[in-house]
């Protein structure tokens, strides 16, 4: 498995970046969804404001999933740092799971759109793109790049 070590710097950077972004997005979303649920900061309307757009606040579980994905990347980072090449597995799984959830949210978005199309006709007033565009979707671009770059290498792990 020596061939990986030369490229592990790249992966460490990737793991750090992805881990950081997911953890950040996840924890912000978590705090805001919790406070919205408990009605802590009623002055700021998260549903409509800037934060509402980026961190659709009513999604508590979604925020936990972001935190989970972030933790997988960070876990992989720590293993890579101590020289354990198995850390790559964490990055691989992290990429896999983040892409899975990006797909889940895209499909949910598609479902909501179709449903409101059926009920309200082409104007689709009931549907709000910004509400459905969850962080898991746009953050997913990063792991997607990672997947495309290392695709061959991951497949080669079989051999």
């Amino acid at each position: 498995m020596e061939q990986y070590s030369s490229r592990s710097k790249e992966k460490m950077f990737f793991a750090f970046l992805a881990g950081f972004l997911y953890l950040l997005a996840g924890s912000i979303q978590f705090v805001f969804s919790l406070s919205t649920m408990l009605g802590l900061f009623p002055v700021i309307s998260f549903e409509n404001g800037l934060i509402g757009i980026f961190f659709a606040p009513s999604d508590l579980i979604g925020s936990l999933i972001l935190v989970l994905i972030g933790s997988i990347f960070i876990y992989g980072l720590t293993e890579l740092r101590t020289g354990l090449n198995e850390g790559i597995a964490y990055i691989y799984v992290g990429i896999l799971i983040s892409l899975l959830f990006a797909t889940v949210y895209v499909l949910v978005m598609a479902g909501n759109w179709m449903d409101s199309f059926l009920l309200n006709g082409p104007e689709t007033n009931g549907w709000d793109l910004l509400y459905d565009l969850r962080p898991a979707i746009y953050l997913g671009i990063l792991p997607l790049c990672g997947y495309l770059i290392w695709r061959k290498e991951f497949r080669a792990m079989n051999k």
Partner: protein
Amino acid sequence: MADNRIRVALTGNPNVGKTTLFNVITGSRQHVGNWPGVTVEKKSGLKIYKGYEIEVIDLPGTYSLTAYSLDEVVARDFIVDEKPDVVVQIVDATNIERNLYLTTQLMELGSKMIIALNMYDLAEERGDKLHVEKMEKILAMPVVRTIASDNVGISELLDTVIAEKQKENHHAREIGYGDEIESRIIEVEKVLSQDKELASRYPLRWLAVRLLDGDENILRKIAGSGIAQEIKSILSSLDIEVYEALMADKRYEIISAMFPQMCERCMTRMTTSDMIDRVMTNKYLGIPIFLALMWGAFELTFSFANPFMTIIEMIFIWLGEMAAVHIHPDWLASLVGEGIIGGVGSVFSFIPNIFILFFLLSMLEDSGYLARAAFIVDRVMYKIGLQGKSFIPMLLGFGCNVPAIMATRSIEDRMDRMATIMVVPFISCGARLPIYILFAGTFFSKNAGTVIFCIYLLGILVAVASAKLLRTTTLKGHPAPFILELPPYRVPTLKNSIRHMWDNGSMYIRKAGTIILGGSVVIWLLAALPWGVEYGSEVSFIGIIGHAIQPLLGPLGFDWKISVSLLFGFVAKEIVVASLGVLYGVGDDHFALTDSLLADPNMYSITALSLMVFSLLYMPCVAVVGIIKKETGSWKWTAFSVAYGLVVAWLLAFVVFQGGKLLY
């Protein structure tokens, strides 16, 4: 002609592809899954090939001929007692060394044997170099390469079966156990040979080896014979445990001598599978990952299916309107509109959800992930006192509880098995999903997916807690340690997932067209009779029944309509939704059932939650009661299971409803 008939038994370790092979040969559709212990019963099928009538028998997987659990006994007894013409051992080409243990035992039986080296694709992909001809020579039996999942090598296998059947003389390789054991074998053999009947049924050397191996089942088989006493006295003079260990050692020794000649580069190494497992079964991340994936599945089941549901609902509403306008007389219009379209239609509209959920579960199962889930949960379960193996039947229970309860046959320990049978009904099956989707969708809109996920989770928790309770009270005992061989990760195939989805989904449709249709008509009749009452009013039969049982369920927040629907839900859980559809008269006022429910002043989110909890936990359906009776063989346990489910359901729904009322 007797000569044209060939009986072929498929045997092998668990999860090597026996059922997949069986399905491609016979064109059947037995359940295939990426974990050990899927098949628990023998299944036979027929194949006409080149003028031969080949009867193929699929057997449960087994690691050795020393049978421990019920399913292993099935596999062993078939090969030993029924003497198929040819035994085909399916060997996982990526795991030959481990599979050879069974081979060494089968060889001793002396029947005609063929090895199907299955999953050849995976071995090649890994870069293993397998020497098939060498293997044939060493084992003295034909070896055929197959890829069952891609229908490769099947005709070669069948040709070999026919050739083997026609072979006159047949020579099987024997395993030498070393002088000391060999002399014992001869001694026992001599005694055995006095019983002519026994000698004609079994190879004596094999019997002797099994007896010295401490095989209790064989001891039982010869118990009726006149020489049983003599055998027992020989055995009791020996330290059988030492012999058992020595013989196993010898087999392993032989295998490790043979194996390197058959395969180069087949050493064990860290594979992708192992690497992924480090993450998936990580002490801290394992359970969160499991929960996250399940949540994703339910979120999709709900949200993505929504538009399809809307379409089906629209069609049925339109049909109901048509019925109301065009059908005369009025009572017939009501039967068709409210009874049939209302009842069956409300169940039909959940078909997209059912299909999507089963598609996703099948992907998770096929990828090998669900078996990991069992492993992760096992760590928790073991502390709780239930064997992790119990989790596999529970996973099957998400589809339907009936096969899940049958799957408990793979659990060796009787106490474990009983406890598992008792708790499987708490696992939410597909038939309960419509109830959650209806009520969660109506009262929790955006959060419906999460609510449904929580209900499923509650089912697992109640199951696990009940198991703990049972294992510390009536079904005391230590759980047997659990060794689950983790299947490798595989990219799930679309074909398999779609087939799985179709099998489960079509069952649901078939039920909708039969039991649910019948149930809807019965409920309509009860709602329309006695003649002349207002439809579905309190003076109709159904109103009378509803009011009679409503006091029991009132504390849970249920009115008479819901109470009576739950009562009929005993037949099948979908009927709860169907009868609500009938009673809320979907066809009549052109409203979807969801609108009627929202309009009902007695229904609000707490009631909906309480109803979902109750539906989750009370007795699933008559079919499950039947299978519990059959598998436990006891009316007492069956009655206990029903009563226990009702009590738990009532208590938890009570807590949810009363607690919720206090909070709001």
